[in-house]
């Protein structure tokens, strides 16, 4: 401590001692530059959130049927004779569209909205639903095709944020948001590390095909392994998760 004796003594309300001016000047530059370098290092190395995003420039408008499987989905025969498609649906914000799906079950409707797209996953944020007259029977919807029992590892997300409503829309930092979305009626999806029939995401239901309950809350956003039956509904895969087999991997 004796070496401290010769060092200049700073008193806040007096001028800075000359011997300290250079030291403090260098420290101030290091402080500002150090924070700047840290900002650049931390900001430039952010993880890629993927290509998911709202397709604001390509509004969605198609005619088909609303079904509850058990979450609201919109099924179409495909444009101009194309393959039939099944879209997961969401409302505005962190809300689902259960009410609109129930009100319009069994009748042909035109759904307008904004697609949220990530890779080959497209979810539609519903803006409006109108019934189509004289269109009953024009659609012949297929039944789900079983693809067998699978043990999948991956993450349970909410379909909307994962599809691109938020970037990033997965991970533990997003866990509470995913919980709010799913509680609000947005379908949960299982994002698998390995593909099944070429797909890595699945609409999740419980083992009996019902809406997921609180049993997924503690597992949201974690890296988990779950067994269950997989079904194909047009181009959408449905994972009927047996939550008794769920375990956290990491």
């Amino acid at each position, binding site marked *: *401590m004796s070496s*401290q*004796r010769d*060092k*200049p*003594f*700073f*008193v*806040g*309300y007096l*001028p*800075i001692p000359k011997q*300290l001016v250079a030291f*403090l000047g260098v*420290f*101030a530059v290091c*402080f*500002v530059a150090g*924070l*700047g370098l*840290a*900002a*650049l*290092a*931390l*900001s*430039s*190395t*952010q*993880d*890629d*959130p*993927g*290509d*998911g995003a709202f397709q604001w420039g390509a509004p969605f408008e198609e005619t088909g049927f609303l079904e509850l499987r058990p979450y609201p989905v919109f099924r179409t025969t495909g444009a101009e004779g194309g393959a039939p498609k099944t879209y997961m649906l969401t409302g*505005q*914000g*962190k*809300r689902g569209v259960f009410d609109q799906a129930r009100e319009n079950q069994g009748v042909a409707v035109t759904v307008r909205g904004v697609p949220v797209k990530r890779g080959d996953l497209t979810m539609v944020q519903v803006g409006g639903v109108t019934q189509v007259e004289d269109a009953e029977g024009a659609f012949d919807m297929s039944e789900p095709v079983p693809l067998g029992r699978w043990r999948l590892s991956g993450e349970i997300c909410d379909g909307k944020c994962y599809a691109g409503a*938020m*970037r*990033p829309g997965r*991970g*533990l*930092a*997003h*866990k*509470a*948001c995913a*919980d*709010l*979305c799913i*509680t*609000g009626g947005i379908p949960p999806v299982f994002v698998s590390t390995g593909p099944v029939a070429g797909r890595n995401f699945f609409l999740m239901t419980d083992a009996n095909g019902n809406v997921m309950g609180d049993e997924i*809350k*503690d*597992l*949201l*956003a974690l890296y988990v392994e779950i067994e269950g039956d997989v079904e194909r509904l047009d181009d959408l895969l449905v994972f009927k998760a047996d939550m008794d087999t769920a375990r*956290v991997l990491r």
Partner: protein
Amino acid sequence: MSVKYAPVLWNRNKYLYDAVLLAGVIGYIYLYTSVGPFYQDVTRPIDGAVLRMRAFGSCAFLMLTIILCIGPLARLDRRFLPLLYNRRHFGVLTAAVAAVHANYVLGWYFNFSPTDRYVALLSSNTSYGQVLGFPFETLGIAALLILFILAATSHDFWLSFLGAPLWKALHMLIYPAYAFVVLHVALGALQGPDDPVFTSVVAASVLLVGGLHFAAGRAEMAADNYQADASSEVEALEQGGWIVVCDVGEIESNRAKVVSVPGHDRVAVWKYKGKLSALSNACAHQNGPLGEGRIIDGAITCPWHGYQYQPEDGRSPAPFTEKISTYRLMLVGTTILLDPNPQAPGTYVEPVVIGEAS
């Protein structure tokens, strides 16, 4: 030192301090949100709200780390004492930056929902029984509340109202706040995709804070260990309760030797004008280490904020009213002895004249 309360007693040094502080924080936020994204390897840009919440959150973490480094740095090297002078402004700005981070989190992750955002904040993740997936937001809330309390009570009014010991004890909550922040980051942001840069920054910050405190503690312990060659007269006095401070030649003029008194506060023994006086080592302002100060214009001057005391009676020069405890001293040969029983704050004690012993 003041005889009335004002929001801030500005001076040139405080302006300079705050200017550097603001330049650092504004530069950090600008570079993080506006320049860093040009160098990101991403398919599509990260949401602006997420980027801003990360910018303000990481900035608050780094600011808190620096704040906690200032104390031990100033103990290890006095050239860092100016950083301590206006540390309260640093703390208040840190609380504000952390609040902006929290506001972005509330307005993004907890917004757009039928559930009220404040209700959602506390109710959406309740997995308290697990480490992975633990509601790390709660840890952030706890840290933010502490930072708010510390910022709100940082003014000298609260220091005077609560008294220096209680005020200082309250502001030691900065350490639990830092622990909450580290856990908040460790259970939240660090559990995302591998991010070696942020992980390294957090680990280095924690090691730096811990290492500096350890080093400062060791230096202080080493300074406390004094062994005197005791004469029979000194031994007799020691048995009577007096404490050996050091040899009179060890104290430089206008400086002090700090001695630990078992069961009491530390005492600073000052040498000046061929005399010796002993006062409490704790400044009445923020309990700063008076013994690390100097005598300027005949007054003991605290190294933290320049509060001054007369060495004979521990009173601040008029018109100021602060006062601290004084102690009796004795000089046997060249050995200084201290009566560890404090006199009432502001009590005059006749200085010991060194004479030929010096």
